[in-house]
């Protein structure tokens, strides 16, 4: 098991040493953009729309852990596939879903990507290389293996990234998948966002090791711990794992230590979390931290960051308005599209 902390594209990072190109300035700005857009959109959903009763059903957000989704998915190229967890809003944006589409989905609208059939981030599109989670935790890990078998056979050096929480790591499917990926040397990057809680369950009741990353060694793959609130560190570590995968050297396991800066879901006050922890982790906020870095290194000015913030708010406003004015699906459409056939219901309109 290895530990990587705070490698940056400017310092002599692990990445530099191995001559993987570090992020360029434009990329840094895109990263900040996605971080901020994700934060803003999720906050609007959790703290406004949900409270207004405009979102029915469960609301899970990834506040405080946005660096993991952005720092990893931003590196994907065409042909790669991502299987995000229920807290990886950013991955959908990065892979080209519009905020309007996503908001429509959260609000059960007919023109959301699932046409109201499924909720939250259960949004998929094979053409965009996004395979969504189902609620049954861990189930996407074996799916990632199947994706990677095909990627490997295609021979275009593509990889699959699958995200899951530390609680999910207890499920049998995660084990079966990591073992299978190890045996078959599949290009899968297993990214565990260890946010200290699984619903109300602290890690001490979830596993009996210090770092979950030790599991890598159990499957013959690298297991790396990284500060999940440091987007540059996440970027570097994932870059290396992706490079490994592209080179045909097999899977990697990355444990991103972070913290869930919210309840489990919008109805959960998280009273089981000691208040100090929220205070402590607030200091490590991945967005503030990245902004500070960008300012210090003069990649961006305060003004530019402000403008980004305004842009992001505007986009969320627009998407919310669009979703709210979008129609709900016709009830009777519920009976359609169970099966795929020559007269497939889904094909009739574009998604």
């Amino acid at each position: 098991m290895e530990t990587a902390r705070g490698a940056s594209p400017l310092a002599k990072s692990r990445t530099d040493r191995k001559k993987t190109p570090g992020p360029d300035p434009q990329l840094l700005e895109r990263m900040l953009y996605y971080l901020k857009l994700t934060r803003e959109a999720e906050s609007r959903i959790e703290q406004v729309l949900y409270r207004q009763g405009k979102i029915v059903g469960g609301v899970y957000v990834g506040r405080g852990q946005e660096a993991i989704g952005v720092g990893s998915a931003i590196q994907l190229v065409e042909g790669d596939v991502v299987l995000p967890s229920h807290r990886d809003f950013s991955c959908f944006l990065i892979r080209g879903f519009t905020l309007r589409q996503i908001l429509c989905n959260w609000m059960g609208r007919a023109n959301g990507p699932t046409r109201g059939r499924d909720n939250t981030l259960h949004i998929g599109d094979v053409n965009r290389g996004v395979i969504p989670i189902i609620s049954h935790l861990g189930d996407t890990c074996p799916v990632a293996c199947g994706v990677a078998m095909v990627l490997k056979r295609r021979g275009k050096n593509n990889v699959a990234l699958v995200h899951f929480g530390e609680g999910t790591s207890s499920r049998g499917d995660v084990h079966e998948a990591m073992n299978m990926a190890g045996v078959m040397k599949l290009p899968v990057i297993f990214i565990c966002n260890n946010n200290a809680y699984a619903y109300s369950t602290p890690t001490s009741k979830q596993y009996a090791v210090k770092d979950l990353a030790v599991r890598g060694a159990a499957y013959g793959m690298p297991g790396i711990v990284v500060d999940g609130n440091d987007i540059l560190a996440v970027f570097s570590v994932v870059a290396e794992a992706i490079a490994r995968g592209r080179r045909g050297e097999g899977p990697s396991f990355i444990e991103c230590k972070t913290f869930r800066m919210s309840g489990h879901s919008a109805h959960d006050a998280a009273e089981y979390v000691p208040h100090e922890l929220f205070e402590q982790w607030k200091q490590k906020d991945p967005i503030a931290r990245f902004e500070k870095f960008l300012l210090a290194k003069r990649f961006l000015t305060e003004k530019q960051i402000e403008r980004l913030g305004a842009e992001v708010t505007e986009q969320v406003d627009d998407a919310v308005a669009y979703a709210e004015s979008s129609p709900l699906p016709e009830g009777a459409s519920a009976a359609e599209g169970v099966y795929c056939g020559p007269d497939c219901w889904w094909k009739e309109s574009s998604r």
Partner: protein
Amino acid sequence: MAILTYLEAIRQGIWEEMERDASVFLLGEDIAAYGGAFKVTAGLLERFGDERVIDTPISESAIVGAAVGAALMGMRPVAEMQFMDFISCGFDQIVNMAAKIHYRWGARVPLVIRGPAGAGVHGGPFHSQSNEMWFVHTPGLKVVVPATAYDAKGLIKASIRDDNPVIFFEHKYLYRRVKDEVPEEDYVVPLGKAAVRREGSDLAIITYGAMVRTALEAAGQLMTEGISVEVVDLRTLLPYDEQCILASVRKCSKVMLLHEDTRIGGMAGELAAMITEKAFEDLDGPVVRVTAPDTPVPFSPPLEDYFLPGVQKVVEAARKLAAY
């Protein structure tokens, strides 16, 4: 007598059994300090301690398997599935390990697997399922589905005392919406006994779970049209109460089978077969099924409303059958 919600009644039932019998203990995800996603087990940790109210990792298969192991050692584990949808992750341990042990080598496996099931709260395809039939079709299990607070308490107590693996489906829509008088003293509602919720003579609606309310509401409406409907609440799906069902069939000669679960391979099919086998001569019309369509449970409210059999659908089907 206190008025309790369905949810409180379940909690009280578990509580009383834990007081009565030191071999009863609970395991599941987030059930201890947090008291469960729906708070069914709230307060039990404080009363019974962490040896009897055990938080587990997210491992449904290990939860069920551990319950089997503990049951074999003489305990009476009650395992929670955070949502009954996730029972599919512990499925193999239920149908192959728990269900078959007694048949194979005679050991007792007294355990309960319980949790919230059913739709109506916009939970989407993975938090709304009615998965009872997988277990109704597995010899060796018992399957229980309470519809009232009184029954919820009496049935959970009977389930905990039963010497067989019992799958206990709580309907999440009813948790806080249904309230009745629930005696504080000890009582059980025996497994395998249905209840006639409303007497009638023209048509029997046989149903269970949240659809009992739907049936009763429809029956009230149909009464105003001069159609007298009997409503039977199965309460236990395996073993089901053949006698009670057949009595209502014979009395009414027309039968509607109603459930929230999807149609093909659903409970209604089983009952229709049993009824046409055993009471063919008594039937004055086809056995009618009113069920959800054969789709996953969709999320968006208009879709979910369409999916769920509602009062209007029941009324219409009943009118047609009555006129047959």
